[in-house]
């Protein structure tokens, strides 16, 4: 397969960037999208140019490092799939592919397609956990948790923190990411003690980081590689309302 790529190149955090075009020939359909970029990078290196920088690590859709907007869709055209799981058989010979970084004020570009997502860590630091010191945990069976709750909590906890929801949301809102963690912890018995402070502190930090608000478009759910549902945003709204008014 031969493809025409238009890739965002940017030297570093403070310099302006622009779209640059590259040809990718000898692309096989069995290649993953990142492997295709590896091949393009090898050609660039052999020509002495700087390779296209992008974040990646596990390449099996679980670490949340890879973060490319492909033809306007974060993580590309395949649903419930990260960039690194996308395979080139989804494209046709001669296609033009636009590759851009996540765009959000809270995710400044570091270089080319790499962005700084530490704002997510700061939100989690505000309360995305249960405060329990090592050693003072009761026996695991002290508090039975019904299977439906355990399964639901698991689905909310499956978020890999990739940020595609922010990249796809028209308001660059982080509500899906924040609500997944708030929902997981507030539905578990262990999470009850800090229910009020958790949602307020995390929402405050989310606002401080410069994320937008949620106007219920539902774009985030469409691109989330772990199928996190917008129903958790409704959960967060309820948690926040109860925390504010009770």
């Amino acid at each position: 397969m031969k493809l025409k790529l238009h890739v965002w190149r940017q030297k570093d955090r403070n310099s302006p960037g622009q779209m640059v075009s590259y040809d990718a020939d000898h692309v096989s359909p069995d290649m993953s999208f990142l492997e295709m970029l590896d091949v393009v990078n090898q050609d660039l290196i052999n020509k002495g140019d700087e390779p296209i920088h992008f974040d990646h690590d596990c390449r099996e859709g679980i670490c949340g490092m890879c973060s490319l907007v492909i033809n306007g869709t974060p993580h590309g055209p395949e649903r419930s799939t990260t960039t690194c799981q996308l395979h080139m058989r989804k494209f046709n010979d001669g296609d033009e592919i636009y590759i851009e970084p996540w765009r959000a004020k809270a995710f400044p570009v570091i270089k080319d397609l790499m962005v700084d997502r530490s704002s997510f860590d700061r939100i989690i630091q505000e309360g995305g956990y249960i405060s329990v010191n090592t050693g003072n945990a009761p026996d695991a069976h002290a508090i039975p948790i019904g299977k439906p709750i355990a399964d639901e909590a698991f689905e909310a906890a499956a978020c890999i923190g990739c940020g595609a929801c922010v990249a796809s949301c028209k308001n660059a809102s982080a509500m899906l990411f924040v609500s997944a963690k708030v929902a997981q912890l507030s539905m578990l018995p262990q999470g009850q003690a800090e229910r009020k402070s958790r949602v307020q502190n995390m929402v405050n930090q989310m606002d401080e980081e410069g994320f937008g608000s949620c106007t219920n478009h539902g774009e985030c759910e469409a691109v989330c590689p772990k199928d996190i549902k917008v129903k958790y945003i409704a959960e967060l709204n309820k948690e926040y309302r109860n925390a504010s008014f009770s």
Partner: protein
Amino acid sequence: MKLESKVPSGDIAQKWDKHRFEMKLVNPANKRKFRVIVVGSGLAGASASATMAELGYDVDCFCYQDSPRRAHSIAAQGGINAAKNYQNDGDSVYRLFYDTVKGGDFRSREANVYRLAQVSTNIIDQCVAQGVPFAREYGGYLANRSFGGAQVSRTFYARGQTGQQLLLGAYGALSRQIKAGKVNMHTRYEMLDLVLVDGHAKGIIARNLLTGEVTRHAADAVVLASGGYGNVFYLSTNAMGCNVTASYRAHKRGAGFANPCYTQIHPTCIPVSGDHQSKLTLMSESLRNDGRVWVPTKAGDDRLPRDIPEAERDYYLERRYPSFGNLVPRDVASRAAKHECDEGRGVGPGGRGVYLDFRDSINRLGEQAVRERYGNLFQMYERITDDNPYQTPMRIYPAVHYTMGGLWVDYNLMSNIPGLHVIGEANFSDHGANRLGASALMQGLADGYFVLPYTIGQYFASHDQGEVTTEHQAFADAENETNERVNKLLSIQGKRSVDSFHRELGKIMWEQCGMERTAEGLNKALKDIPALRAEFYENVNVTGAGDNVNMELEKAGRVADFLEFGETFARDALTREESCGGHFRAEHQTPEGEAVRNDEDFCHAAVWEYQGMNKEPIRHTENMEFENVKLATRSYK
């Protein structure tokens, strides 16, 4: 190099409690005076950092990813073992200890393994208290499943993402301490050297991957939790960034490297589909519960699997191992697959694959039941290979997965360098020659939550080194050496890319140090690797500059260390004249191809001491005594 295991005396079941009583402690008020560097934010690094911070120590935690939540522990799928015996099927601390020592093919230290089994119960309690959403039965109690090599079902899991959920629990505890100001988190930093002051580990040199700045960090003790070295084979199930740099740098500063040749090959991975392949993907071992492994009986039979009649199918695992069948331990299953492919009965491109067929279980249980158990794994498989496992059998082939070897540590998890502690996959101690499924997560969290936070106090209480700052000369020297290495890599400006060298090294390692090793092959590797290393330092092309984000420079540093470490790996495999666990020497096997251990001469850990680039390292040993688990050959017939 002195190798004292410092294992306390007395009955195995009392050693840990006795040791905790006899240890010198740091009183709470003084803990604030001690600073600890933790390299790594995986299960081991994150849990250790959080727990030590909770106790009052000041912690500096480092990781190369952009967030501590992305350490490679995130990729673990299958589950985590613990001796809870919730299923009431006869499990106990002693049985978990026994299974792990026996599974490790009698090459681990009994005392460490017993302690691992002993604290395993606390791990599950801690993770449940953190809100880790383990799978539950309808009554609300924890669900278990069984894994290869164990007759009880002691594995706790969170569907196919157990590693992720355990890591997110530890990441939560770590984030809480970062917020409390007790942990200073350094993301996108790579440790490039260890700094010794008067022979004690007192700091590290780390490069800021964003600015390229090489920085000094001082502390009263250093903890390495930097994961495994599987990527020396280039193609493995590890993440792309996994490296041996942190451990190898400590090794070059004098830390003993134990059993590097013990690497685990996971039998059920997706085969290589072309030379563009950057990484291999693991399919969870739980698939082997319902899938039947087979190859065509005739070599070169390239008919579609559904066209090959039952009579011409060889279910070779069930044939060779009637009692365990498809659930034989990983090393046995991997070698059997290689054997079939070497004899030309391999399937798929390049003849490097065997079938894992679910036709019978779909007929027996119905597609819906199979979908419920393995739905996301089948979806992942289809996404990568475009084949639908419900209709056509999966193609699988073994791939490098876990490294039992690592830096040598004593009972306090301290290396032979005082002050340098090593935990998680980066140390050697608990899994001997072969790790049982779902026990690496247990070890990482055991070391981090319940062992290191106590034993590091022993070091602090018994060595008062006084304040060490980065002004010390040792830091200046180490920083200069690191800058020289970085500039050297940038200055070579050769013709070949870093990946091409890494791929070539991987090929040598896979062919000579993979599933089957021979003296002749290993000697060839001991010649080819230094030659490749020499060419690397003449012909590698590292583009870009050092003062900015530079992927190629990062990879070059890691491949340079792999090119040295690979040689020590091959040397260890050559000198260990026996077959045990993940190390199989063709010269030491029974006529039926079973591993033959040599317990008289090799019932020890081989610990290598670095002597300099291109110089042969010295081999020390620590004998492994087995008072509780009698030495016996493993049989899974």
